[in-house]
């Protein structure tokens, strides 16, 4: 029989080692798939590493890919801290992108230095307000936010498709369902010449630092942690539990909205319905790998981005499908959840019932 005994103290080392081991375990599991595809495992991982870190171009791709993941990872981490299960990062990302494009394609005649902050603010606001809907349904009617946020993703993506086929369709787009391009003054500057990494990365890092400070050092963060850890005690102690949930929802949705802003205003310049390859969902994995720590989110986002970028490059070189990246990401979520069990509990194997029968 296996028994789980809770640990009284969890050492910081164990806390940090757990996600690292989980990531390695995920790569080990994925190597079975590589071997099954008939490719040499070590060479494949070597190519992945090279594709993710091997050159300035690779690094730029890595950072560009990590940018939205930092935002969606922060969105999930903030919400999960309050035990508000926001699975709607994907929808909020699209809402943010839609708002950024709506503002950034010339609807507002503002000079550049004012236009960019407006675009950013509009995207954040759109994501935040979208998340407010399920949060209100939760606090007013008790509707499970896992269901409502998840389903809202589909509503939002269909709405975006409708807009791209209709009012926002680019007349010069050769019939493709895409928005008009954003004004050059509305675009986030590139960080390096002829590379894709853009100022959204800076914004993401500032956001991570900001969230860290809010959670650790402010009354809001204190209240968020209290509500997340024990809502009954928080309410008894006079903490406004409903207001805290709504605040967290606004912040979480806003962060996911910024991921959408970065993708349209930093990279593509226009909106399509396939803007995100699931950044919203991958953000959940990022947050879990990070143990819901905002600083950890940055590290975890780099890892997940590395897997995606590396797998693309590897698949071009030796022909293993880049679905491998999804496999690694999904497996690492499972591994990190299992590792959480080992962090919190001691596992003991005990023999039971070996005594002599009571004859």
């Amino acid at each position: 029989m296996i028994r789980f005994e809770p640990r009284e103290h969890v050492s910081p080392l164990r806390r940090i080692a757990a996600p690292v081991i989980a990531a390695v375990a995920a790569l080990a599991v994925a190597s079975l798939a590589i071997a099954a595809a008939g490719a040499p495992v070590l060479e494949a991982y070597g190519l992945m590493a090279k594709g993710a870190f091997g050159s300035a171009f690779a690094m730029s791709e890595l950072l560009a890919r990590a940018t939205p993941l930092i935002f969606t990872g922060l969105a999930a981490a903030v919400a999960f801290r309050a035990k508000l299960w926001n699975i709607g990062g994907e929808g909020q990302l699209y809402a943010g992108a839609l708002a950024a494009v709506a503002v950034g394609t010339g609807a507002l005649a503002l000079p550049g230095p004012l236009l960019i902050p407006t675009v950013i603010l509009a995207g954040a606001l759109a994501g935040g307000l979208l998340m407010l809907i399920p949060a209100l349904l939760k606090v007013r009617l008790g509707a499970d936010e896992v269901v409502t946020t998840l389903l809202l993703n589909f509503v939002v993506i269909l709405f975006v498709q409708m807009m791209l086929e209709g009012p926002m369709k680019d007349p010069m787009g050769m019939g493709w369902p895409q928005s008009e391009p954003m004004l050059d003054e509305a675009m986030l500057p590139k960080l390096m010449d002829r590379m894709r990494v853009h100022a959204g990365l800076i914004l993401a890092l500032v956001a991570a630092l900001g969230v860290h400070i809010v959670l650790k050092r402010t009354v809001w963060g204190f209240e968020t942690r209290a509500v997340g850890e024990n809502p009954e005690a928080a309410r008894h102690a006079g903490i406004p539990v409903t207001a805290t949930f709504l605040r967290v929802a606004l912040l979480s949705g806003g962060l996911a909205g910024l991921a959408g802003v970065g993708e349209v205003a930093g990279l593509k310049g226009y909106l399509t319905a396939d803007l995100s390859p699931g950044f919203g969902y991958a953000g959940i994995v990022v947050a879990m790998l990070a143990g819901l720590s905002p600083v950890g989110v940055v590290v975890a986002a780099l890892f997940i981005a590395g897997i995606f970028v590396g797998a693309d490059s590897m698949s071009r070189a030796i022909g293993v499908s880049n679905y491998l990246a999804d496999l690694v990401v999904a497996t690492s979520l499972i591994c990190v959840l299992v590792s959480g069990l080992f962090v919190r509990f001691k596992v003991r194997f005990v023999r039971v019932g070996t005594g002599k029968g009571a004859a």
Partner: protein
Amino acid sequence: MTVPVEAPPVALSLSGITKRFGALTANEAVDLDLHRGEIVALLGENGAGKTTLMNILFGHYVADEGNVRVAQADGTLVPLEPGSPHAALEAGIGMVHQHFTLAENLTVLENIMLGTAALFSTGGGARAAREKLDDLMRRSGLVVDLDARISRLSVGEKQRVEILKALYRDARVLVLDEPTAVLTPQESDTLFETLKALAAQGLAIVFISHKLAEVLAASDRIAVLRLGRKVADLPSVDCDRQKLAELMVGHEVTMSRREPQASGEVLLSLSAVTCGEGRDTVSDIGFDLHAGEILGIAGVSGNGQAMLARLLSGLEQQTSGDIRLAGREIRAHDAADMIRAGVARIPEDRHRDGVVGAMSVAENLVIEEIRSPRYQRFGFLDFRAIAARAVEAIAGYDIRCPGGDAVARLLSGGNIQKIVLARTLDAEPSVVLAAQPSRGLDIGATGDVHRRLLEARGRGAGVILISEDLDELFALSDRIAVIHRGRLSPPRPAEDLNRAAVGLMMAGQHTEDAAA
């Protein structure tokens, strides 16, 4: 083993039982013999290892060392298979848990037969069972309606069903874990009468308790556990309260005393207040709380006192009626309003409502005032002020913990309660609501709680003490009211009441006759 000729034969023998949970030693080399026809009280504070020991006996846990032997029908002792409740049942050990293990939607008869009847039995089994139970009820005096659904029975009746269930399985040893925790004083007396009758018929009985009065009254022998060790095993006639208390705690005990004191103006006044629906309600209750008095509210758990506490804590609002605090009407209030109005609230379930277990001791000490300028500036936490407050409260209230940064969950119940006391009482509240403040605490921590409540009273605060423990109520209260099915009797001076009268009122007897 040689048994003295005059002593009745041993029914059960525990020897050298040791059980560790990680670093904690719950039982250490405990020996206990139980004879036929004897009632033994297992006395000890919370965490002394009483329940662990009985769980080993019943096979829920496996002891690390030592063994359990049970007498066969012919009197020979054979080892009991460890870790098997089934073997314990087979060997004639019956256990009545503190939380009953009955299926609410089945009848008494069905519950008793559950687990003993064959899967596809015919009606014959039920008829035989009924006959056997009728006989058992006649001999034991434990009478219940076999066809009643469990959900319709009172707590006392449910406990009778549990005992009958054990007897039906031919128990020769009966173990009861805190059997009086949910009973009125009268129900407790009836229970002990029954247990004495059963012992006289040869049953060996162990009951776990931390209440000195009932242990002295009801047992033949008292075994005291302290920190996992058996520190005494004495005939009950050789014991008194003071001696037992000292054995339990390990040092001398001084009890707090209430000095007479004149009470002042009305601080809190309720009139015709109704709140809640379903089982846990208060309906049409009213009382005045004066400055400098402790108003005790007695009642068996589940009669509306939890709702009254939630109402006064700001977690519920009244549906009708008036609440006035220092003359000002209170309506649509929340917890923050009550804190601001100077109401200190000590919640009944301190782990659920009292502290955020995952946060630190320091954070839990300031959580009610986190928005006050004392602990924040422009929304940023003042860590220095928070740490200073923690140092002050840890020293002032003797909170045993590694420091302000320690996670609150790791503290003992008594120290968690001290966090709550420090947080609420240091703000010099005008009204104190203490709901079951000493439940589950050891004697030392209980003494601290009582001292703090009396201090608040001495300072001129009005204290509402909700408790099920009559000893506590009589020791502290100036006036006592009884809550039964959501209705509150008019408070009477404690001097005009006695335990029997309050006990009858707790059971729903009309207040006028009871107080006579």
